[in-house]
């Protein structure tokens, strides 16, 4: 298997997947996104324009939802589906007929989504979105409903005509409060069209927010700081999004034809720039980028001149419904991400079991299991070593029953015996060999008068000049003239210095004394040579 094959196989193993659903008057768009080891993989599952049979939006959406439930008719298998509703009664028709020519594998694959929440887009015109500097000190994220409310309170929220969700985000030194509102009837109509109950923890998100997320995925906002204005341009419509790399702050829907495209862009720029300065109390737009269909009848330079800013083009596809659906799907990949969910106030709180981070906890527990196995293995190794040591110790019969203290006492006694005995037995100087060397090396004309030697083992020599090991010879040599030192003296010293044995044991040779004497009318010289060890 090649590396490319392996990479292709691994890229098909999703770590997390999500679905985005974008409903438009012209049809429904569904995109599945899966996060793999090699990035995000996308799959456009539905595109009504290519479908052979024309269906209404509601029909298509219900069909999509039916397929998302794994080809199980919602009326038969889904407890959350309102069976007595007219929509539910018609869903059974969609499990077979519109998509019966689809491959079976797709249906099997779709079973993965049976319980997975979906992110549904709310069209921009249906959502009121406000961004302003936070007036006081509300919590970082809140919704119009108390999340700890019981189910009955959630049902009370249904009576509200407008659903609200808020999010407070830091932008520079400001705390900006983002507020989105939507009529409850809008969610009801989506629920009626899709069969996706708002109670099932699906996320309802403004479509421009999803478009900002998709745009940021294709071309991340750079630099990380500053206020960015990005134009997402399609064929005849577009979106101007004001935001940071972390959150969108405001948007303007653009609708144009070729002639007025530049004017629409300029107008959006000025509107949003005023919004930044006056409502958000920020310094203004710092970067302007264009993504998608950047064709323009006029020159972009004229637009730049109108803005007074440079415009940069960034990578990314043309802005359309699939683009938005992809952004919604990306949002599903990050269920804990900070975003707006207009259905939050009417949704029952997810159970603690559903919210718990089982993945992370499982990872920690698996690490614990690995740690246990490693430590167990380590302990087993130590026990094996201990058993071996105990067997070796037990095999020494004389030591059985003796304490460590007794053994140490015996060791101490042995050391006190062996160490001085070794010192005593280490004889370095053999006087017999030293005498042989002297007898051999002295010149023929000389004669020995006396020899003194010492090899002190324990007691120090009181005569420090001699050292602990020495041999001192006194020898005589004939003098040819009175008072003249005979050359044999030098020869004797050099000979003792060069003797192999003497060089080894008594290397320091020194002429210590020279005396001229006369006896029976003939003169001679008596000299002393000291050979000592290095110490």
């Amino acid at each position, binding site marked *: 298997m090649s590396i490319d094959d392996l990479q292709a196989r691994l890229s098909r193993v999703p770590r997390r997947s999500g679905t985005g659903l974008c409903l438009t008057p012209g049809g429904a768009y569904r995109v599945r996104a899966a996060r793999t080891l090699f990035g995000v993989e996308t799959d456009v599952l539905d595109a009504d324009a290519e479908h052979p049979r024309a269906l209404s939006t509601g029909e298509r959406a219900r069909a999509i939802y039916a397929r998302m439930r794994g080809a199980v008719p919602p009326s038969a298998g889904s407890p959350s589906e309102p069976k007595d509703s007219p929509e539910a009664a018609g869903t059974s028709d969609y499990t077979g007929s519109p998509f019966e020519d689809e491959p079976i594998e797709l249906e099997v694959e779709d079973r993965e989504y049976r319980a997975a929440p979906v992110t549904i887009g709310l069209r921009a015109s249906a959502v009121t979105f406000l961004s302003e500097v936070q007036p006081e000190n509300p919590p970082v994220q809140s919704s119009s409903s108390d999340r700890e409310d019981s189910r009955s309170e959630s049902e009370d929220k249904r009576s509200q005509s407008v659903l609200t969700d808020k999010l407070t985000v830091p932008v520079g030194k400001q705390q900006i409060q983002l507020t989105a509102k939507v009529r409850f009837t809008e969610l009801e109509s989506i629920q009626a069209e899709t069969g996706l109950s708002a109670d099932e923890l699906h996320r309802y998100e403004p479509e421009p927010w999803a478009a900002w997320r998709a745009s940021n995925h294709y071309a991340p906002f750079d630099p990380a700081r500053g206020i960015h204005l990005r134009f997402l341009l399609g064929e005849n419509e577009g979106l101007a999004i004001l935001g940071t790399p972390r959150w969108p702050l405001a948007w303007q829907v653009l609708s144009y034809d070729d002639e007025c495209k530049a004017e629409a862009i300029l107008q959006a720029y000025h509107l949003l720039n005023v919004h930044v300065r006056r409502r958000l109390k920020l310094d203004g737009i710092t970067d302007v980028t264009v993504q998608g269909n950047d064709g323009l009848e006029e020159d972009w330079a004229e637009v730049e001149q109108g803005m007074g800013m440079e415009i940069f083009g960034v990578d990314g596809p043309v802005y359309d419904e699939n683009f938005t659906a992809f952004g919604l799907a990306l949002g599903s990949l990050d269920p804990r991400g900070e975003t707006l969910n207009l259905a939050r106030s009417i949704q029952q709180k997810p159970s603690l079991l559903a919210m*718990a981070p089982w993945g992370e906890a499982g990872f*920690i527990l698996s690490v614990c299991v690995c740690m246990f196995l490693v*430590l167990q293995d380590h302990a087993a190794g130590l*026990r094996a070593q*201990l058993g071996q040591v105990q067997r070796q110790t037990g095999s020494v019969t004389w030591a059985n029953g003796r304490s460590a203290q007794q053994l140490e006492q015996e060791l101490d006694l042995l050391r006190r015996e062996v160490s001085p005995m070794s010192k005593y037995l280490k004889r370095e100087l053999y*006087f017999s060999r030293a005498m042989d060397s002297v007898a051999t090396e002295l010149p023929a004309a000389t004669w020995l008068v006396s*020899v003194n030697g010492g090899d002190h083992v*324990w007691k120090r020599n009181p005569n420090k000049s001699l050292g602990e090991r020495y041999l001192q010879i006194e020898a005589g040599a004939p003098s040819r003239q009175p008072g003249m030192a005979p050359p044999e003296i030098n020869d004797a010293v050099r000979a003792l210095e060069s003797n192999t044995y003497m060089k080894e044991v008594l290397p320091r040779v020194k002429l210590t004394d020279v005396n001229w004497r006369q006896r029976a009318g003939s003169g001679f010289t008596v000299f002393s040579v000291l050979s000592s060890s290095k110490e």
Partner: protein
Amino acid sequence: MIESGIPPHWKEQWNDLLKQLQDPIKLQFTVLGIAAAIGFFGVYRPMDGTIAHVRSELGAGKRRLDLIHEVESLRAKRDDLRGNFPQTPTENFWTEHFLEGIRSAGVALAELESEPQKIQIGDFQVVYFNLDVSGEYAHVRGLIGWIEDNEWYARITRMNFKKRLSRIEANLTIAVVVAREGLHGA
């Protein structure tokens, strides 16, 4: 019946706890904290304690084994070194030993004197023998060689030769060891 046994304030605290855990961050920290605590207190601590105990026993066992090996090694070395001495060296043994050497070397003995020292080597005590002998150089040299190359170890610590006409007068001090229980005069 069971529920009635639970104090009301306990139930309130439990409900408060559940409310707190609705916050995903708190829930995340709590669950991960519990998992980490299970790992630390349920796995790491007991295993670490076991390993520390076994390691301590192993260390003590290894120290004891090393001690035994060291004692055995020193015993062997001591026995090896003792092979240089007679089985039970006494002053009398050494006196007879040196007399035999003097006789075989052919030198004349003037004096043989033992002088016990306070130096002890294990079960032995050091004794100095002072020998005054005279003879030809070759005979005196032979005596020294006999002492140094003998089966029983004796170490000459001091030596003094003086030439007197046709003979050599030699004074030797020889260190030997005697068994402490065998200390009695020559």
